[in-house]
């Protein structure tokens, strides 16, 4: 891959002040990506969500975000004003969250909400907006878009809600989508179907996808490349297909303590946390994979 990377982050640090001393949520995180599926995996508190949010400047204002470089399509994101960021968030980078129920307005129909999102981006007539909305619902494999168009958010299931959210995020045709645990609340078959939609978007539209998840197995099978985070640091960046063969002690520890369908019923190996993982020498940069 020799083209300009879609997103480059270099030496990202995020600190949250707290009365008990500052909490450094992200330390020296660097990566860069093109039009691919990049997974960020980690346990809770690993800083994976904070990393995703800091790209979009969606962190609370008291958070202290610093980076040597944060470039999206060659433009510097660091000193963008809130107004410019809103533009970028709407047009270029979208975000899908874990629970669609909180992101949709409960008293308006699903269709109207997507229409509205469409109208804020393009100057079009009502009718045209509706047509585009139905197209979008169709694009995320909703079988009867016309019926779903008139449903209220509480009338749709979790999987359907997540598809609707994705449809809404697709309207401005973003070149990067950040999905924070988009399928964790879903049943496994529905989860696979939603992932298939995201997958198709990446392969067909050439979109970039940052897929934040706690599920090692899922990321290994779904993404192209994987960043493994622990304690705010990048432990390892590797090709997803090589993840299971990783030799990094943390990655190995995580993989080992997963119960397997065809494993034994012996006690699971416990992850032994190594203090050294918190030191700088364990922070990895992204040179290897690019």
């Amino acid at each position, binding site marked *: 891959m020799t083209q300009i990377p879609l997103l480059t982050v270099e030496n990202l640090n995020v600190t949250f002040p707290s009365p008990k001393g500052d909490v450094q949520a992200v330390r020296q995180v660097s990566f860069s990506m093109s039009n691919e599926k990049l997974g960020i995996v980690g346990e809770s508190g690993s800083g994976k969500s904070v990393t995703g949010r800091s790209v979009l400047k969606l962190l609370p204002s008291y958070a202290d975000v610093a980076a040597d470089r944060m470039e999206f399509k060659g433009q510097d994101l660091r000193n963008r004003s809130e107004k410019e960021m809103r533009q970028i968030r709407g047009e270029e980078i979208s975000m899908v969250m874990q629970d669609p129920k909180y992101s949709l307005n409960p008293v308006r129909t699903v269709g109207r909400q997507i229409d509205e999102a469409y109208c804020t981006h393009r100057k079009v007539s009502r009718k045209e907006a509706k047509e585009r909305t139905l197209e979008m619902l169709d694009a995320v494999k909703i*079988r009867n878009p016309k019926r779903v168009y008139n449903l209220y958010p509480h009338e749709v299931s979790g999987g359907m809600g997540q598809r609707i959210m994705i449809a809404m995020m697709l309207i401005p045709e973003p070149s990067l989508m950040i999905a924070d645990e988009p399928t964790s609340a879903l049943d496994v078959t529905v989860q696979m179907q939603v992932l298939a939609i995201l*997958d198709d978007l990446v392969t067909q539209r050439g979109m970039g996808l940052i897929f934040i998840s706690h599920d090692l197995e899922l990321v290994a*099978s779904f993404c192209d490349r994987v960043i493994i985070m622990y304690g705010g640091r990048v432990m390892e960046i590797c090709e997803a297909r090589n993840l299971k063969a990783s030799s990094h002690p943390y990655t190995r520890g*995580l993989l080992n303590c997963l*119960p397997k369908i065809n494993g034994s*019923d012996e006690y699971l190996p416990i992850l032994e946390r190594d203090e050294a993982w918190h030191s700088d020498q364990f922070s990895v940069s992204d040179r290897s994979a690019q």
Partner: protein
Amino acid sequence: MIAIEHLNIVFGQGANRSHALKGVDLEIAAGESFGLVGESGSGKSTVLNCITGLLSHWTGRISIDGTDLSGQRDKAFYRKVQMVFQDPYGSLHPRHTVDKTLKEPVLIHGLGDANARVERVLDEVGLGNRFRFRYPHQLSGGQRQRVAVARALILEPSVLLLDEPTSALDVSIQAEVLNLLQRVRKERNLTFLLVSHDLAVVSHMCSRVAVMNRGEIVEQVNRNQLQAGTFSDRYTTQLFKASKGYDRSVINGFVDHFTRSEEA
């Protein structure tokens, strides 16, 4: 140990009527570890709620240790059957210390010797006295779940119902809690009924598994069948495939399991 026959339950009326359990039959032997797998809305947790008496308007037969259960559960039942809930953040009283949470069942059943019992059970779940006077907000998710296990064990039950006991936990913590559960099962010769959506967890923990879909048990398999993936039912096969990780080529073959209101 647990026998369930023709368990039926209906929620709501008229247009909102939903037949949540449609004639569920289960037979779990003493000392067995039995898994109940299914996706959300399949009714797997409802089965647990019927056994514990949190739901009372079911029909059919449930018997524990040879005695049939009727509408009201007595104290003797709760000494025999205990439960661990899914959400470690919601299952502990936010204003009670670990000590108080654990003493409460001892007091209810008038067992006496509360302090010694609390100390013993805290040791057993690997927490120790250090944690005894903490409030839940001073504990991590895994520690809370250990307290929940301790609370279930303090009455020395013979049956433990586990409702997705690790699905809210990180994988490294999940491993610790699963190991804890396996250890106490061996030490106390407990009967487990484990409800989960995660085939890997169930396969790891259970010798037999029932798969539920839309209020029915579609298939019962043993661990060997589960690991080999030899199923007779189409739904089970699909669930198994989906649990194997992401594979673009098999997904198009998935049949949707939408509820009727969304069926278009």
